[in-house]
């Protein structure tokens, strides 16, 4: 028998400070700061309040969707139809503007269509029990397809002047309306995920849906609400994007779903569900925005930037795993 009392048994393996320092969020924050510094040295135009303010447009719309998408992915599902919801919402708003509906009416119609799209996804996933990845690949074609049927090769451009406020307005000095929306939604979703019963339910569903069901969580209802929220946030993003562009074409926001998913995964959300945080997504949004903006200042074409985004996505996930494998191999 060994004397247990002689052994020093720590009551926790790491201190809170160590845990914070080793967390995904701090790694990401370090990356963000590094990119910021690199940008500052690389281009003399970077450190300019107005330029930085313009840079926020690179990520605010995507990030708004990414908050809701983070919850969906944490719950173990995915929604690939968000960019198509943007197109359909934008088409509906354009049609409404065409017949002379005022700005509040346009926005309400947009939000309504977004909720309807989310409800459609949610009903197929929870009601019929279909895998969300396939359902939303289908609705991705369907929603954008409806936009193409309505618009064809045409465009809606007759938006009222007051509609421009969402995407082109400033609240105070260089602070754009979109940036305020982004920050407000960051707080709302942060509280929803980290401080409410609903948020805890989302985590438990992602970790073990059957266990969650047996512990009294209405799994299907929670998932349905998550798809509703994603539809709603896609609609909000659509209001901002349409207002910023001032026109609607069926190809609007094409491929944005992948950038949103990239942002969420970069933010440390496990693509298989069960873990992740809103602060992580916020930092990831800044990282992606800074990378694309900084490269843009250096005259790098958009498609080459996408190489960096792709490498970033794989790199940030691969490097910690490689590091772990390396450490285990040394032991």
């Amino acid at each position, binding site marked *: 028998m060994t004397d247990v009392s002689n052994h020093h048994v720590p009551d926790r393996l790491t201190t809170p400070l160590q845990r914070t320092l080793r967390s995904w969020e701090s790694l990401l924050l370090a990356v963000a700061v590094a990119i910021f510094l690199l940008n500052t040295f690389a281009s003399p135009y970077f450190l300019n309040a107005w330029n930085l303010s313009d840079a926020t447009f690179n990520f605010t719309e995507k990030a708004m969707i990414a908050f809701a998408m983070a919850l969906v992915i944490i719950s173990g599902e995915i929604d690939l139809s968000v960019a198509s919801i943007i197109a359909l919402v934008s088409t509906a708003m354009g049609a409404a503007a065409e017949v002379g509906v005022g700005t509040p009416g346009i926005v309400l119609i947009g939000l309504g269509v977004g909720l309807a799209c989310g409800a459609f996804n949610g009903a197929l996933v929870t009601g019929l029990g279909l895998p969300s990845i396939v359902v939303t690949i289908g609705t991705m074609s369907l929603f954008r397809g409806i936009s193409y049927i309505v618009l064809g090769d045409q465009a809606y451009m007759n938006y009222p002047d007051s509609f421009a406020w969402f995407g082109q307005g400033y609240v105070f000095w260089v602070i754009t309306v979109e940036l305020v929306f982004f920050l407000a939604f960051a707080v709302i979703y942060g509280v929803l995920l980290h401080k409410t019963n609903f948020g805890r339910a989302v985590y438990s569903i992602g970790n073990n849906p059957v266990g969650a069901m047996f512990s009294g969580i209405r799994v299907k209802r929670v998932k349905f609400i998550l798809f509703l929220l994603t539809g709603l946030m896609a609609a909000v993003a659509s209001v901002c994007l349409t207002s910023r562009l001032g026109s609607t074409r069926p190809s609007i926001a094409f491929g944005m779903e992948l950038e949103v998913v990239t942002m969420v995964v970069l933010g440390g959300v496990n693509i298989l569900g069960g873990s992740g945080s809103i602060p992580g997504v916020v930092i990831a949004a800044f990282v992606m925005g800074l990378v694309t903006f900084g490269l843009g200042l250096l005259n790098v074409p958009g*498609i080459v930037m996408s190489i960096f985004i792709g490498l970033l996505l794989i790199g940030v996930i691969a490097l910690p795993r490689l590091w772990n494998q390396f450490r285990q191999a040394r032991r």
Partner: protein
Amino acid sequence: MMSQLIKSREAILLAAILGLLALIASRFPAYVEPGNLVNVFNDTSTLIILAMGQMCVILTRCIDLSVAANVALTGMVVATLNTLMPGLPVVAILVIALVLGACLGAVNGLLVWKLQIPAIVVTLGTMTIFRGIVFLISDGKWINAHEMSAGFKDFPRMEIAGLPMLSWIAILVVVCFVVVINRTPLGRSFFAVGGNPNAAVYTGIDVGRTQFLAFTISGMMAGLTGYLWVSRFAVAYVDIAGGFELEVVAACVIGGISIAGGVGSVAGTLLGALFLGVIKNALPVINISPFWQLAISGSAIIVAVAFNAQSSRTKGRVILKSAEQTA
């Protein structure tokens, strides 16, 4: 036995395609003339080839979203090679396309195998990376028909027994996959890994290695399609086959490949691709604006997956009975 055959997914899909053809033929008989059906098949060939590779990947519980970008990259590389060395024989180009495609697929496979990164994340990343590399190679410029050599462009159009080479290659690919999927240990291991990865490990199958091979095969098919696509349309540019990866996944899903892995067949995949091909080619004939196509294929995916889920649900209830019957 007979009722099983009638209830099988492939039979229902086949009936749906024939019904669709009959419906179109009732108003536009020219559509079902052999000459036109050959055209429809030829037009669907690239989708069939890609769907076969994607099937292997989905069977192992993964997904390959990088196939369309792989098509664009290999297509651009072989087209560039052709402009630099017009004398290079088509056989050499085919080999280069297959090898390059397989290498790109292997990159996906290695990341999934060695680093255990989820396939959807890996291929999402490589998709944008491959597309970006096409831009870097081409500098955003197009390679047009007059810059390609005659032999390069003519190969997919060569007719043998009334069927263009492109169609023959698709048929050859399908035959190869029938053999590989149904008659080789590799084919069995795809199903084993997708059906139950833990059990697969205990039977001595390396799950990661099997997934790696599936990705390599998918990449190889994408490479082959890259050359065929570029030479058939006689043009290579950055956005070739943009968004085509989702059509490929759709063909598999409609064909009854379960996205959860382990369930599916070559015949189903073939029929799923043909189903999309028939619709795509029928739209201009029946005077529906091509703008409808996206919404129709989206609806087809949703209906197909809902239908598949329904049929697998009933199967789940009687699993013991059917097991006794087959035993």
